[in-house]
């Protein structure tokens, strides 16, 4: 855990981010005031179920939201400057030199009609700008990255098409690519969801090893709770476009506070057995018409009279944790 001094500026801070999507059904109010921050060198996880806004948050940070998305409000501060207010060329520089992203589906992230090596060369040329590189050095650099992600026979991979590689190898290629461009922040969006468990384990260990060696900050987004637990220092839990809880990783898994987090963790089957809960009653709300107050209140077992009137702010709990729930208001 990094120490948290008040005057320190976090690497990235998302403040009260609100994002909606325009659709034929109307305006979907997806992100409703998302807050989170990541310190330099810190590894942060964001967990939550499908449709909770994890990926939208990341796309907002990378400024790759689809065209029907509207940023209704909030700030995304990178070293204290709001990236939402930057010009495209200013932000491009950051995106090109500082950030990198690993996507869920490595097959979709690679172009099927070009050889892997050519694609990576193109990206490197672009990220380096014009005239400052030697082609052979670029190839060396890529082969080196392939070695670092432990791809067998890197020369052959360089000359392969994506379909000639297995899913795990393709994800390694994507990680190699991210490593080539990420100097500061790596955003991994469900990087192991489509992989078998033994391959998932290999990829997670690889990411863990590489980020600590290169001292990168990481945001790992996943619905695979165990994968997040093994990799990060701090966890944020999202539900229906809001952050409901954050805490140090072991504390969060040992002693979840928010009723949603508690229900989510008790739904997950354990390797030690003991049966499974009945799940969470009800369904995720429709973003067209989200519940008033706390968005979890219609499914919450600890609902109080105030919950559907007013959205809860953040209340502090042990180990620097924060919970958006009135149950913790008296503290």
């Amino acid at each position: 855990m990094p120490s948290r001094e008040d005057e320190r500026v976090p690497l990235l801070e998302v403040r009260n981010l609100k994002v909606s999507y325009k659709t034929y059904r109307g305006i979907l109010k997806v992100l409703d005031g998302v807050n989170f921050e990541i310190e330099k060198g810190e590894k942060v996880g964001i967990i939550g179920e499908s449709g909770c806004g994890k990926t939208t948050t990341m796309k907002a940070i990378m400024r790759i939201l689809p065209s029907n998305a509207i940023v209704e409000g909030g700030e995304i501060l990178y070293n204290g400057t709001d990236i939402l207010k930057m010009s495209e060329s200013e932000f491009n520089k950051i995106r090109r030199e500082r950030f990198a992203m690993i996507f869920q589906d490595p097959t979709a992230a690679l172009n099927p009609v070009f050889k892997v090596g050519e694609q990576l060369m193109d990206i490197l040329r672009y990220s380096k700008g014009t005239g400052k590189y030697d082609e052979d050095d670029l190839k060396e650099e890529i082969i080196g990255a392939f070695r670092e992600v432990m791809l067998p026979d890197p020369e052959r991979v360089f000359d392969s098409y994506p379909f000639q590689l297995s899913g795990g190898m393709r994800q390694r290629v994507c990680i190699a690519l991210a490593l080539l461009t990420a100097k500061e922040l790596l955003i991994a969006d469900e990087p192991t969801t489509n992989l078998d468990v033994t391959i998932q384990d290999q990829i997670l260990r690889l990411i863990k090893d590489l980020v600590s060696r290169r001292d990168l900050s990481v945001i790992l987004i996943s619905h695979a709770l165990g994968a997040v637990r093994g990799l990060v220092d701090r966890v944020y839990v999202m539900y229906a476009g809001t952050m409901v809880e954050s805490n140090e990783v072991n504390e969060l898994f040992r002693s979840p506070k928010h009723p949603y987090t508690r229900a989510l963790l008790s739904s997950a089957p354990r390797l030690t057995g003991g049966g499974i809960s009945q799940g969470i009653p009800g369904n995720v709300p429709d973003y067209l018409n989200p519940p008033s107050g706390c968005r979890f209140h219609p499914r919450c077992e600890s609902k109080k009279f105030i919950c559907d009137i007013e959205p809860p702010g953040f209340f502090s709990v042990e180990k620097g944790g924060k919970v958006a729930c009135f149950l913790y208001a008296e503290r």
Partner: protein
Amino acid sequence: MILEVENLKKYFEVSLGTVRAIDDISFGVEEGETFGLVGESGSGKSTTGHVIVGIYKPTSGKILYKGEDISVPLKKRPIMLKKEIQMVFQDPRSSLNPMQTVRDIVELPMRIHMKHMSSRDREAKVKRILEEVGLPPEDFMNRFPRELGGGESQLVAIARALASEPSFIVLDEPTSALDVSIQAKIISVLLKLQREYNLSYLFITHDLSLVRNVSRRVAIMYLGKIYELAPTERFFVNPLHPYTKMLLSSVPVLTEDEERLKPKEIRSTGEIPSPMNPPSGCRFRTRCPLAYERCSEVEPKFAEVEDGHYVACHLYNSQS
């Protein structure tokens, strides 16, 4: 035993050669139990399910259902047996007809297997089954699959499987496309139905944590073969095969207790080879840190090492 699989093989001829999807496996499912079949992609676990329900004809071997051989082409399988063995697929969105309402979908097996039923009886039964799986019929009867969430679609698929009053259901990764809170809901419905109707399940999954919580016995497949089979508790507390240990050590877990249960000595390395050209001898040897010469020369026998605990590995049956 309600279902017995004996020396089952299923090969697929493709342009590049022969894919040995299932290569000589044997196991049995007892009445009223959940038998977990685990493995990674390409292990042949889904093909096993498909062969049992009759989607594919086996290349060789026998499948006995209540003692009767059902390893005949599907067209020759008596309709009574088709009714008895049903299946729930992994992706509910592609296993439900998008042009039909929930009512049509759940009614179809009755139209086929219970021709004597009047339409009023059928409607009453559709309602009863929907209630049984936790979908209020007045809300759901007339919906189309596109108007359902992922969990609801899977419940409809389960309702459809129940409609013909089966005693055996093959569950092929029924929750792997769903979130954990929805998975929990589906599993609790499945367990409730099992108790109520004394159903036997073949539960196919890649999720070891899940299988621990639902099945009575577990078998693990790798490249078309079963390498270990044991009662659930033993399988997790005292795994023997190196592959089982590798798989268990790879499972991401949530608590310290689970962390302690994971075998530490074998870490995951390598990738599953092509089933077209599996390694000689023991098929796991290319990834096994404990492999020695014998493993590439002789195929290990699947033998009982303790009561109900079978393993195919030279480390445990030296005489094989």
